[in-house]
């Protein structure tokens, strides 16, 4: 009896002990695998979703609410004319390979990003920089060619993180940054593992290990969540299963906002979509609520222009393109267009594939036939985004404050009306809050009244996590899964 009792008691103790100690590792599910791990040269959102704020840091950074917070720069000063920005850097910061971080790394990183041969995906962020100077190891002075009130915000992007010259060339496969997590391994097609950085300047994170697993199939994502293979799925791909997960006490569902303006993009240079009447007809044919309910199961906020509704400068212009099939038909007649047949390219996400079927049915109701082509991302980027060979497509623009893409003449939907470009130039030189707000309102109105694209809805952040995990971001002010504050509770 005694013999039997001992191991049983030991087992009891052991299991109790395990229950007390909160786990120190996390597995995070992601839909897309990053093509590489260098945020300073790749455009894919998945890169930032792994490395932003975890492996790499910039001079400034985005907080969970989108506010610009100090990063590697403790503080900064702006000259009265708004053109000279002085950044005071943190001391005692080291890279994961042990080398020290200093002002020359900042100079190198910014010059690398704005160089003519730079592979940076967001070069406009650096376009205003005229000169980067280092006067002492802890101070960097950036001179701009024009006043820019948003420069600190620009430096918070994942594309503006600071890297060391020695490791810059190999970041795609071996990211070395200054962040709270160190890159450990990448098994292609399966996962990326990060481990805690013992020497992090901001204190060691609560998690010892974090694994990002890539699961593109919504059904598999649901199964992985239910089986406990994944602890958190910040952008869960199957919105229809959320009520079921919410009802399960093991999980919590986190609904927040993202910067993802989901639009029905139209090729503004392609006949007959170069006619504003036809674009307006398409816009009025769309019933946004049906798309939100049918494709996203109710998660999403209708938008009437390319701007995030949670932004204080947002103007509600949904009435301009209200659902009105009769008006749509009248506009088509006015434009003299009959028997219109358009191509509709759909990338893989649920919002596009399901939303596309709904939009096709809505367009058919006003007499516009569509030919749907489902595409993988690589093909979409090649043909639609770079090749500009499309009529209609559905995509979510997840970059924050990206209304300026309408000023780029070579951007895939090809708008760039001179008056709009003018507005954006004015905005760049304005730092007064009220004046900026007014300019942004004008910009929103101009693209809404020109019906550049069909504005559908703001993508909701539909995340699922184990109920015992705290510290995940509720909203997505940028493409990131910041794990610094994530921890398990009992």
């Amino acid at each position, binding site marked *: 009896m005694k013999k039997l009792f001992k191991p049983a008691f030991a087992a009891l103790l052991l299991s109790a002990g395990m229950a007390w100690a909160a786990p120190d590792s996390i597995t995070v599910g992601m839909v897309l695998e990053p093509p590489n791990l260098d945020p300073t040269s790749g455009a894919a959102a998945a890169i930032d979703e792994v490395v932003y704020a975890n492996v790499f840091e910039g001079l400034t950074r985005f907080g969970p609410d989108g506010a610009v917070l100090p990063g590697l720069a403790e503080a900064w000063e702006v000259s009265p004319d708004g053109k000279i920005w002085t950044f005071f850097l943190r001391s005692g910061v080291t890279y994961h390979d042990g080398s020290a971080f200093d002002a020359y790394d900042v100079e190198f990183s910014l010059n690398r990003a704005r160089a003519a041969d730079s592979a940076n995906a967001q070069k406009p962020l650096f376009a205003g920089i005229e000169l980067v100077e280092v006067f002492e190891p802890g101070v960097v002075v950036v001179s701009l060619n024009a006043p820019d009130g948003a420069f600190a915000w620009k430096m918070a992007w994942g594309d503006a993180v600071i890297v060391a010259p020695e490791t810059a060339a190999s970041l795609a496969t071996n990211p070395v940054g200054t962040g709270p997590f160190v890159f450990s391994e990448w098994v292609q097609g399966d996962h990326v593992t990060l481990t805690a950085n013992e020497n992090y300047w901001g204190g060691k994170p609560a998690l010892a290990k974090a694994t990002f697993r890539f699961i593109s199939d919504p059904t598999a994502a649901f199964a992985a969540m239910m089986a406990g293979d994944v602890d958190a799925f910040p952008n869960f791909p*199957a919105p229809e*299963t959320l009520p*079921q997960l919410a009802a399960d006490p093991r999980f919590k569902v986190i609904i927040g906002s993202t910067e993802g303006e989901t639009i029905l993009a139209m090729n503004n240079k392609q006949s007959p979509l170069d006619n504003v009447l036809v674009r307006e007809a398409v816009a009025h044919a769309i019933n946004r609520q049906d798309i939100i309910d*049918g494709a996203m199961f109710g998660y999403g906020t209708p938008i009437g222009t390319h701007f995030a509704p949670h932004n204080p400068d947002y103007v509600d212009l949904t009435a301009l393109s209200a659902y009105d099939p009769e008006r749509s038909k009248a506009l088509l007649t006015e434009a003299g267009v009959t028997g219109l047949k358009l191509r509709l390219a759909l990338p893989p996400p649920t919002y596009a594939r399901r939303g596309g079927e709904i939009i*096709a*049915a809505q367009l058919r109701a006003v007499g516009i036939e569509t030919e749907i082509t489902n595409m993988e991302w690589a093909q979409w980027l090649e043909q639609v985004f770079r090749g500009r060979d499309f009529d209609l497509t559905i995509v979510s623009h997840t970059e924050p404050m990206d209304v300026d893409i309408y000023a780029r003449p070579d951007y895939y939907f090809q708008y760039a009306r001179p008056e709009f470009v003018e507005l954006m130039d004015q905005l760049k030189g304005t730092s007064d809050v009220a004046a900026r707000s007014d300019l942004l309102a004008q910009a929103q109105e101009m693209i809404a009244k020109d019906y550049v694209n069909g504005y559908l809805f703001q993508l909701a952040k539909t995340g699922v996590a184990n109920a015992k995990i705290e510290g995940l971001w509720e909203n997505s002010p940028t493409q990131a899964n910041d794990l610094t504050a994530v921890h398990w509770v009992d």
Partner: protein
Amino acid sequence: MKPGLAIGGVLAGVALIAALVSLVWTPYDVTVLTIAEKLQTPSPAHWLGTDHFGRDIAAMLMVGARTSLAVALVAVGIGMGLGVPLGLLAAARPGWADELTMRGNDLIFAFPSLVIAILITAVFGPSAINAIIAIGIFNIPVFARVTRGGAMSLWTLDYIRAAQVAGKGRARISAEHILPNIANLLIVQGTIQFSLGILAEAGLSYVGLGAQPPLPSWGRMLADAQTMVTLAPHVAIFPGLAIVATVLGLNLLGDGLRDALDPRLRRAR
């Protein structure tokens, strides 16, 4: 009549009738989405409920049956139209013609059919037409082989010799004497290939390479229903049942027809 033949006939017949009726009438228009009525369970208004876009599942299945049957039928037609003459040629001209056609068949047989079908639709773009071509190509060697086997055994028979002595050419003998005598074999094989064609079409649509929206197809209905199985099981169950019932029906029908038509089996009894 064997019960298998009757059951098979009824199951396949239901699919066929549903497909034919859908040409003139469906309970609802499958191209109209009524989001407000999504994922309803079966009711008097919607016998089999509605899918995630509020479309009537019964109507979707009827039009889907049309897609499935049409794709499988044309694919079997391609297989028969090209495979049977090749098989007859191979049997009539032993030697290089036989070798050439049969080795060509082996070549097609050597590839996993569904993978090649995926390749074809991936290269030429997903559509019902390309699915037909992809499935049809893999029916050619099946029919060529069955035809050759049946024809070879006939070529040794006395009445064929008699026809040869009477001066009929090989092509005429193949058409006038061989083909009618292997027709029962071909009908049985055709039924089986037909059921495989329906499965292949469902498989291709499931991975998004078959019929494209808004044309409903059983395979895509299943794929769309995947994540909703726990939420509304009926959206997955009914298309699944339709595929199972039709394929089972055609297989039973094929087996029953073989029992009734195949002279070799009749002799053994």
